[in-house]
């Protein structure tokens, strides 16, 4: 299905958020996720179903002021 990952359209085979992160090469990374603007805690990624056209944000620690 087509998912928008950090603003870029990606074709993913994964059906849930946890699998999507593995597919994106981000398994095990220190990240936080939001699906369609809503925070999805790490513990809820498995079973967080993806649908065509979903917007996924994958965020990681960055420099800040």
């Amino acid at each position, binding site marked *: 299905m087509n998912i928008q990952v950090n603003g870029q359209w990606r074709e993913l085979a994964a059906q849930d958020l946890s699998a999507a992160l593995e597919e994106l090469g981000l398994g095990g*990374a*220190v990240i*936080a996720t939001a699906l369609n603007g809503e925070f999805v805690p790490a513990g809820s990624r498995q079973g967080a179903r993806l649908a065509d056209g979903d917007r996924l944000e994958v*965020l*990681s*620690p960055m*420099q*800040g*002021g």
Partner: protein
Amino acid sequence: MASPDSLRVYGVELGSRLLLGTARYPSPAILTEAVKASGAQLVTASLRREAGGERAGQGFWSIIRDLGVRVLPNTAACHSVKEAVTTAHLAREVFGTPWVKLEVIGEEDTLQPDLFALVEAARILTREGFEVFPYTTEDLIGAERLLEAGCRVLMPWGSPIGSGRGLNNRFGLKALRARFPEVPMVIDAGIGVPSHAAQSLELGFDAVLINTAVSRAVDPVRMAGAFARAVAAGREAYLAGPMEPRDMAVPSTPVIGKAFLG
């Protein structure tokens, strides 16, 4: 062991009154050395989109962990209550802390906080167990509302973020300090040179948060050290009780007993 004059925020003792931002350093190595030179025990950080295989965020995170300092995640560039609250949740999970520097920007040219949205977001986050450090202005009513919303520290701006203009409204900041003498206050934003930081502490503010003034200096590591000494001097001066300015000269050398040579 905490020193007797350490800063206490949300029940945590911080040995340094200099808080340091981590953005816009020339390199990760210079960031590391600048944090060490500053003596800061609390640094700010943010969340940004992870760019696929680069894993830049993971590298930054390991630098911060190696430094052994506390992290204050921010909600920089958020313009609405929802955006700021969601960002705070994301940050709490990544950084493993209930602390959040809450920014809700209301105006692009000055990056002035939207106090109405800030208070609302602070109320929501406090209810959800966050310990909120609100980036605010010197507005007294805004401060009162933030305290009512559950904030136990305030972070008024000195002047617009990154402007380096120092304390733009010294009178307003003094009034804020006097109105809430027991509330820890950190001057956040607008500090350009160490003398601005010293002035902030001399006025009785508890700490300063510096980023651009250090990271964009020609020698950030050296500037971090300069700020550390200015903050220490400003705090000492405040504790020593500065004299009040006068309009007229007062001779410092006693005139009694002066020889008559005219």
